[in-house]
């Protein structure tokens, strides 16, 4: 059975009728839909086991703590982390990247260098701008080549003895480019720079294995991988986490507190101040179990096939431009495109009239938009529940757009 045939019944929202048409949801790159098992796991949690975690010794508190810590084990398995202490829960990718930037930021000195890339999402750019400004450090960006890949020769020039951090996306949320993580990590490590990988678009799509990527930090959001809003993951390599002071303070992350000072708690809690997103962790466990049951290889293949079908279809459609690497290359489940004579917003609005949800705009990647020479693009993204028929509907609708306005 094709993957979508198997999965579609699990997603209640696919019953939605939008503007008289069955919903065709091609915006999972912004936020995916949720299978029933994820929604129900959170319900069950709230209806049977909710309490605050960690410091409680009553039955509900123990159940909640076990469920919360079980989510950590699930994530550890899902990303192949060496130990559960390397898995820190955050509120999302942006939160995780901000936490890392603040934490590393405290260790930076004037004229230290931070290397990012031109295809970064603002969430992997602005936190570094803030840190660079605060510490007098310099921010440099690896250019993107015409084929949508990173300029690796430039990377070699940009990484110097002064480089302390190299931060980059695993999969571009616009181009779909899969960056050579292990290779970039190798070059960064040669100068002892810390590597920070934004995995927001990779985690829903690729099988992850932290040791083989080799990076120091890897962050992603649950809501893009069938999980709930409000929670994300920051993986940190043990040795690096051990060496860092926590960047943010609060309860839970301390061992002993006096008015003027505190002693930090053990890993991973040292990096988790305050009441965590507990129900959300329960939902994330269910999302991971769903993906594992399907198998990430199969998820990736299915989404690649839809991406290829879209790229090939657009190549045959007059007036449509696509961005990013060619269909022959492995890509993320992302196709950004432009329709001649139409603004991306109008493309999205016109497709919505046919029940098709795509995103339009700068996709929080304004520097990349500038490099592409556009203000924005339209963008279709795919998940486990999308079908080849839905791609056909998209292709037909886009083909009819040029005469629409």
């Amino acid at each position, binding site marked *: 059975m094709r993957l979508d045939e198997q999965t579609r019944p699990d997603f209640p929202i696919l019953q939605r009728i939008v503007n008289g048409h069955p919903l065709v949801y091609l915006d999972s790159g912004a936020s995916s839909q949720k299978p029933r098992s994820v929604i129900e796991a959170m319900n069950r949690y709230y209806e049977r086991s909710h309490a605050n975690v960690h410091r409680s010794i009553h039955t509900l508190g123990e159940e909640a703590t076990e469920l919360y810590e079980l989510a950590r084990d699930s994530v550890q398995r899902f990303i192949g982390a060496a130990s559960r202490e390397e898995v820190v829960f955050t509120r999302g990718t942006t939160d995780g990247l901000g936490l890392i930037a603040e934490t590393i930021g405290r260790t930076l000195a004037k004229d230290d260098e931070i290397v990012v890339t031109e295809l970064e999402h603002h969430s992997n750019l602005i936190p570094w701008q803030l840190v660079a400004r605060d510490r007098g450090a310099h921010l440099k960006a690896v250019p993107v080549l015409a084929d949508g890949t990173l300029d690796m020769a430039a990377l070699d020039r940009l990484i110097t003895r002064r480089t302390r951090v190299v931060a980059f996306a695993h999969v571009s949320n616009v181009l779909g480019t899969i960056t050579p993580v292990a290779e970039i990590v190798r070059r960064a490590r040669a100068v002892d720079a810390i590597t920070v990988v934004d995995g927001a678009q990779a985690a829903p799509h690729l099988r992850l294995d932290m040791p083989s990527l080799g990076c120091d930090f890897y962050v992603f959001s649950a809501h893009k991988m069938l999980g709930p809003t409000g929670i994300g993951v920051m993986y940190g390599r043990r040795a690096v986490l051990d060496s860092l002071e926590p960047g943010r303070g609060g309860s839970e992350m301390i061992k002993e507190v006096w008015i003027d000072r505190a002693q930090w708690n053990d890993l991973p809690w040292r990096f988790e101040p305050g009441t965590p997103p507990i129900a959300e962790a329960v939902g994330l466990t269910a999302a991971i179990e769903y993906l594992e049951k399907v198998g990430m290889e199969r998820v990736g293949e299915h989404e690649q096939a839809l991406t290829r079908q879209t790229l090939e279809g657009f190549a045959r459609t007059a007036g449509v431009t696509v961005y990013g690497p060619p269909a022959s290359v492995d890509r993320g489940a992302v196709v950004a495109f432009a329709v001649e004579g139409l*603004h991306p917003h109008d493309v999205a609005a016109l497709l919505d009239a046919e029940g098709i949800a795509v995103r339009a705009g700068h996709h929080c990647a304004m520097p990349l938009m500038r490099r592409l020479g556009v203000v924005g693009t339209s963008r279709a993204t795919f998940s486990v529940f999308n079908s080849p028929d839905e791609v056909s509907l998209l292709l037909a609708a886009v083909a009819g757009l040029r005469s*629409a306005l």
Partner: protein
Amino acid sequence: MSAAAHGVYSDVIRERWRKPRHRGEVPGANAVAEDVNPLCGDRVRMMLTVAPDGRIEAAGFIGDSCAICTASADVVADLVTGRSRADAAALEVADVLNVLQSEIRPTRMRCVTLPVSVLGQALNGSKRA
């Protein structure tokens, strides 16, 4: 598809998107502002020529913008041309909506309001002139 498009945009918007009357540089403009819609990156620049007596002699815009925003900018330029500075400053979003004749959804309201707010900036000689 045209049928669907009709449902999405009014004839006024479609017409002004296809053939805006005030798109283009305004030579000698002496009140200029430009701003961006943070939600989408759309950018509009409004240019006015204000006579010594305060009358707006010419108005125009350029911008990278969607149909609604373009139509709004075009209508704004239309409405202020020939008016006094004070009258122009009193222009409200409702006046533009009135001309556009389209139901605008909340998430796209900024597409309508951006040119109005840029007009205000141009008249104030303030931000990013």
